[in-house]
């Protein structure tokens, strides 16, 4: 499984309130949430993002609320993968549970620039910046989480185990 796309670069502590502001949480429809994805940090994001694009951020991405609407909005906006130095723990769980691929890789998060073309190979954990030719090795998931991701989310995983 691979992801390939143009990078949108963000800094430290991108919180769930800017990923999907609470004023839109009266909806739980993925398409509607996607229309407001990242609105309070980059109002143009949803106009610019294309299917397959990749978010790269610094530390503590997704901090704040437990709203699953945050990874749902990102996934429904077409983003294929989020790479960060670190993720806030609830966001990390939620992303895996809904099947949004995420990778912790401090080196990639530092080196990759906004607008770079990047390929992520989830099987090997290798991140390639096609724009600069640099390669990075992402933190592989523990086996348990790989099973959840391969089942495309926690619910399918539990259904398949029982």
């Amino acid at each position: 499984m691979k992801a390939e796309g143009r990078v949108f670069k963000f800094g430290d502590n991108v919180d769930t309130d800017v990923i999907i502001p609470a004023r839109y949480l009266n909806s739980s429809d993925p398409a509607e949430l996607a229309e407001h994805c990242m609105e309070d940090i980059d109002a143009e994001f949803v106009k610019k993002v294309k299917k397959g694009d990749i978010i790269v951020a610094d530390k503590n991405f997704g901090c704040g609320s437990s709203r699953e609407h945050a990874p749902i909005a990102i996934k429904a906006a077409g983003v294929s993968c989020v790479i960060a130095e670190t993720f806030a723990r609830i966001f990390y769980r939620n992303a895996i549970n809904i099947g949004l691929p995420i990778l912790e890789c401090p080196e990639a998060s530092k080196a990759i620039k906004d607008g770079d073309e990047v390929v992520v190979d989830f099987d090997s954990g290798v991140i390639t910046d096609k724009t600069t030719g640099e390669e990075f090795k992402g933190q592989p998931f523990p086996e348990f989480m790989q099973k959840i991701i391969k089942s495309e989310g926690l619910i399918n995983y539990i259904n398949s185990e029982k």
Partner: protein
Amino acid sequence: MGMTMTQKILAHGAGLDKVEAGQLIMSKLDLVLGNDITSPVAIKEMGKFNKTSVFDKDKIALVPDHFVPNKDIKSAEHCKCVREFARRNDITNYFEVGEMGIEHALLPEKGLTVPGDVIIGADSHTCTYGALGAFSTGVGSTDMAAGMATGEAWFKVPAAIRFVLKGKPAKWVSGKDIILHIIGMIGVDGALYKSMEFVGDGIQYLSMDDRFTISNMAIEAGGKNGIFPVDDITKEYLKEHTTREWTAYEADEDAVYDEEYVIELDKLKPTVSFPHLPENTHTIDDCGDIAIDQVVIGSCTNGRIADMRTAAEILKGRHIAKGMRCIVIPATQKIYMQAMEEGLLKIFIEAGAVVSTPTCGPCLGGYMGILAEGERCVSTTNRNFVGRMGHIKSEIYLASPAVAAASAIAGKIASPEDI
């Protein structure tokens, strides 16, 4: 190698003699919680299960509190979805408007959270119940759905940071000042993926309400949970609020901590977090002249009876500054009633404040106190992110109820000492 308080509870939940940091476990759950924002997503996910019924109708709590009383049609639809699910599954602990409160103030008050419990909630501030010596942590809606269906959840056993609280805090230094000080010290990701364990002789001076506030904001330091040992103050609270059996877990003498911090409570001052991160802390004497437009006193962080009493002590016989809006939100119906019987609501209203029915409302920019462009608010809530309470160019200053009440009177950020 010994275990921390958190590790002992998780070992018990997983049916193991011993666990260590980093281990993946499957634990039984004593309570699964959701609100009106997160439950509808979980209920939709539940529909995808092979198994359609809930694991235990007594161990699920559904508390519509964020946008209730319903703020608009879409919110009303969400609440309806939760209400119908509760009815269909005969959920014992569904709390309708009129009996509800802000979830993290309500559940301990109802005696549903006790020491030794393993609790997940689809709300990040679920970590609040650590104040009672439970393991409790925030999760998303899918985890909530899986928890409701199976009664289990997977966890990575966390490493821990130990906070040794020493000495007695000064009169206007509360649980809020202690946790803001800690977040300022270690940063908003200072406890990422870890437990925050609070111990030391200083905790004897902290009321249950102070402890709830401290555990509540563990997530603001990135923590997985924030836990206190069970002492006489905890036992007194439990005697008054619950009939459930409970187990107190103490950390082993040789438990391993990644870091240890000693906090001298007697040296702390009232503390304020400046925009736009809880870690941007200033002591009250280092805030400068900051004019404000609004004050909010309430939320799962600071809407409890001790918070109401502190605010009333300062507002009594005084009036808020001209042009100021001061919104007071008791966190539960019981707290509202207590505040009424103690004459606190009269004090608030005479001071020029408005008093609202319990709701999370303004804390997350839902309704009941949204900020316009350029406006500033001193708030006893928990987050001051960009746009959290309204316009992306508005500003939130996080503080204790004492500082918030003093600031409402002064019209600018002020110390209770100056009033």
